[in-house]
């Protein structure tokens, strides 16, 4: 029982670390695009125009939502890849 969990824990902590790394990256983007572009820097960003939108206003009312959807899509893809890699290892 303990040998198995030893093997498991080496593969599994690599899995967990990879997971945390990706969560960190994606949540940073999440923060920047909503709180950063949409609130903290909205006045500066509004000076740039995107059609009828000030860029900050666009991020706050529309753009951040698009980014959120993309972030989850990226996470799904990344984790499916990781799951495959580390589940296969366990089968050995």
């Amino acid at each position: 029982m303990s040998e198995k969990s030893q093997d498991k824990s080496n593969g599994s902590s690599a899995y967990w670390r990879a997971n945390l790394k990706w969560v960190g990256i994606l949540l940073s983007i999440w923060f920047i695009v909503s709180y950063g572009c949409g609130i903290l820097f909205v006045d500066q960003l509004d000076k740039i125009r995107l059609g009828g939108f000030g860029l900050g206003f666009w991020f706050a009312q529309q753009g951040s939502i698009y980014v959120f959807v993309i972030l989850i899509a990226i996470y799904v893809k990344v984790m499916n890849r990781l799951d495959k890699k580390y589940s296969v290892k366990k089968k050995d």
Partner: protein
Amino acid sequence: MDVQYWTYLIVGLTFALYIGIAIWAKASTTGEFYIAGKGVPALANGMATAADWMSAASFLGMAGIISFAGYDGSVYLMGWTGGYVLLALLLAPYLRKFGHFTVPDFVGDRYYSKTARVVALFCAIFISFTYVCGQMRGVGIVFSKFLDVSIFWGVIIGMAIVFFYAVLGGMKGITYTQVAQYCVLIFAFMVPAIFISIQLTGNPIPQLGFGDTAVGSEGVYLLDKLDGLSQDLGFAKYTERQGSKLDLFAITLALMVGTAGLPHVIIRFYTVKKVSAARVSAFWALLFIAILYTTAPAVAVFARTNLLETIPEKAYSEVPGWFKKWENADLIAWIDKNKDGKIQYVAGKSFEGKPDYAVTQNDAGDTIPLRGTNDERLLKNKPTEGANELFVDRDIMVLANPEIANLPNWVIALVAAGGLAAALSTAAGLLLVISTSVAHDFVKKTINPGMSDKSELIVARMAAAIAVLIAGYFGLHPPGFVAEVVAFAFGLAAASFFPAIIMGIFSKRMNREGAITGMIVGITFTTAYIIYFQFINKADSNPDHWWFGISPKGIGAVGMLLNFVVSFVVSAVTPKPPQDVVDMIENIRQPEDEDEELEVSDH
């Protein structure tokens, strides 16, 4: 065909559909009743989650709120979508791996404590009840505005429908009716939006029309035009920030984190087949939600532009038909302060309080509105000194859109069906949380662990039935503060569940003493702040008196921080969790074993 008949027809058809699904989805085990036997495909689950999430408030109210708030309304747009990223990355897959039935289940097992479970279940019940009363009220109102049925009967009918598919089918019935309800509500929302986008900007895609040039204005962008119209009337520019950055930040954070802590949203991720499906389901859910949430601010701008172009300085005798219709429905009110027969609409309140219309009774006992010299409805309210003469209820912005755009009657009926779909789908999800909290977390786990599955199922059904009745009662006699109480629910979820669950997954050291103390501190602080400013001392509820200028709507973010800090400190000086709990956490973090059968377990 008359609007009434179209409405009865379309609403009737959708109700028949929901009932049909309920009969098909009858639950026979607690596994099916609580989590649909874990058999829901990810896309369907995502669609159901979207409908569950988007309540009557999202469908009818949000565009209206944004319409009047302008840029500041962004807190709702970002706040009510951003939480899904948190769910997908930080919560859903782990809870699905954990595999039990409810949120208090996770809290109780992770923190190896009946006390933790009980604290969690009371939070879940309180949050869900406050939310559901608002939904039943919303059902009653849609019925009364569209179907000429009294609010009383509207709530009763709504209760009956929800009762049927929730009590019969449990989570399975609820999930598949929610899929149908999503289709109805998104169609009902998009059709008027597309038409109005074409009318105002020539662009059929509302998200793009939002940033496009206005028809008939020689290349002036719609938003610039709206900014100009607003300023001319003494309003702030639509695109200009009005609240403090810190308050907007806090509100957005409280809403995002609160979203990720709401029990009725979290349990939606227990129902999928595999852990990876939980992430995919979160993706689909946000995609489906985003369709409405990126359209709503466009609708807000279209409606506001329409209002500011059509009404100010218009003689009452010349107002469009929709104005009078919604005046009759108590959603518009006008006092001709300067007696010029024209409607002055500028910044500032027209009169104090909500419209209190002057009415009388005729011999048959019907209520007849009293009218003034212009044929406008008379009000009992005291007018303010300001020049503004008009009151417009924010809910008009979505309700009146089809008429403003001269859309056919069936579109108007569709909006009614959509509003009902939104309210009923959310109500059902909330009622299920209440029922599972009572039957599973309270009766089975805390009081009578030896109970059989059959008995638990009976208790769950009874609990659902009673919850429907109580929710209906409050729908009929709402405490005056329904909208504020929903904000309360978010703040509470942000300050209690979110930190407890996050720390439960990402920290092996977080223990029972830390978590319970943290939850209690978070809840108490948030509750005290909100009750003080919303109920006890409303007069002082403004940025000068708020802590750091943070409104009650945003204080949940501070409650959350307090929870984290207190939990951390307390756990550092109390014993660490037992090994079997640590093993459980380790197991939750690992990918699913391909051969491991994550059967519907109830240990």
